């Protein structure tokens, strides 16, 4: 039997990464249910989403604790260390994505039990949901395969989502004078905003991929520097 150096530690690290990235599966499931609830104004489904967020939060705590234990007992360095730092960020992103789904779910009862007022708005949101689901899947693959190019591509996808968000805004403005319809449209805008945030979190995960691989932390696209790559400022 070969005595491979630090075999158990490697196993532990790989297991940790798998569990963390599986959190993205949970998010995708939550997202699907959320979009479905929006489409059909399904309050029960919305309540399910809210309840199931506990699972995502639980996963976050589990990974967090596992990382602390690994840091304390194994003193990881170099790539291992960067991986663990990245996983902490990723878990936070996952938790936020879950929270955004909950925010959306909470908005649905406000919109009312009636069937939705405007099919175009709903269609727009469903399209956003699909795009974001694809984004999340791509982020997961990029991380697992340490593919920086794939991670960078998330920015382009995010642009698509941003455009859909703006479209939704336009549609909401032009919805008309009816008080109920306007109220519903503004709620849907908040939903679109929340979805867009989920997409941003996916891009953040992509940035972590680059950090793990290169050791450099760069924001792919910063709100203050649109379309460029930014180096973080070092404090003097």
């Amino acid at each position, binding site marked *: 039997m070969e005595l491979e*150096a*630090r075999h158990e*530690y490697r196993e532990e690290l790989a297991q940790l990464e798998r569990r963390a990235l599986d959190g993205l599966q949970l998010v995708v499931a939550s997202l699907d249910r959320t979009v479905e609830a929006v489409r059909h104004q399904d309050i029960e489904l919305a309540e399910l989403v809210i309840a199931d967020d506990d699972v995502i939060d639980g996963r976050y705590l589990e990974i967090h604790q596992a990382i602390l234990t690994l840091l304390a007992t194994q*003193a*990881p*360095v*170099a*790539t*291992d*260390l*960067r991986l663990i730092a990245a996983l902490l960020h990723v878990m936070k992103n996952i938790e936020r994505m879950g929270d955004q789904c909950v925010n959306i779910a909470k908005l649905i009862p406000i919109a009312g039990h009636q069937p939705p007022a405007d099919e175009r708005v709903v269609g727009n949101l469903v399209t956003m949901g699909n795009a974001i689901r694809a984004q999340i899947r791509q982020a997961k693959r990029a991380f697992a395969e340490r593919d920086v190019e794939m991670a960078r591509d998330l920015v382009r996808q995010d642009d698509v989502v941003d455009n859909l968000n703006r479209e939704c805004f336009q549609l909401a403005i032009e919805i008309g004078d009816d008080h109920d319809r306007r109220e519903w449209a503004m709620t849907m805008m908040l939903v679109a905003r929340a979805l867009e945030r989920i997409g941003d979190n996916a891009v953040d995960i992509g940035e972590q991929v680059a950090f793990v691989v290169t*050791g450099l932390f760069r924001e792919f696209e910063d709100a203050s520097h649109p379309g460029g790559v930014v180096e973080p400022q070092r404090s003097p």
Partner: protein
Amino acid sequence: MNYEPSELNVADPEERTTPRIPGRAESPTPSPASPGGAERTSRVEALHATRRVRLERLNAYYGDNHAVRDLDLTFEPGHVTAIIGPSGCGKSTMVRCVNRMHEEIPGARSEGRVLLDDVDLHGARVDVVAVRRLVGMVFQKANPFPTMSIFDNVAAGLRFVGTSRDEVTDRVSAALEDAGLWSEVQGRLSNPGMSLSGGQQQRLCIARALAVEPEVLLMDEPCSALDPVATLKIEELIGQLKEKVTIAVVTHNMQQAGRVADTTAFMLDGELVEVGPTDKMFTNPDDDRTEQYVTGKFG
């Protein structure tokens, strides 16, 4: 400083008179119990690391075994440089070439230059004994002289040169203070050196090496035989000493390199694979072999 490197090319160092240390005030014979304030301060000022050690194309052999290959490395003054690597990679051999202990082994030889500032310590006319007074060494297992008291151990190096009694007393107490041992032994300097604990013995050896006021201090796995508390004390000491002497530490403990060193060099199979600031070496090394070793994939 004790000796200028240009003074190395002297046939018999025993003939040299004890050099005056700049800034030292004259004083009556102090007893070991009271090192005295004024002259102590000027001593601290006198010891300041300025020397850069540069290894140029160093090759070392044990007979046919090529233990160190074409090595280029610099130890900066005022810095601690750690050398890490798996067993048998040549790090101890390399360090022993700096103070020319390598050639004491039968069948061993070396090529290349070891420069202390501009002087090649391996030059043809250089006196080995003078080299070793400029470049001190602390070994893996503490090795105080078994027949000597604490005081005599620290004084040994000075007595080899024929230093005057007053000066010996001063330098011994200063060295014991620099080594962080003074408060623990001041009442019992005539006790045998071997009566101290392992960690104290190692600090005694450090004091012994410091007493001759070297420019460079080489430490070959100084903590590997010590318990964690003693280890931390010595690491603390290294941090304080680096202002006074240029320090190089060979260690197989990577956490220790992380705690103690400003610069870390990684050796493998006799070659220098990578050298850089310690934080970079442990968060984002350039060479894949460094990455493999540091994360424990081999070694």
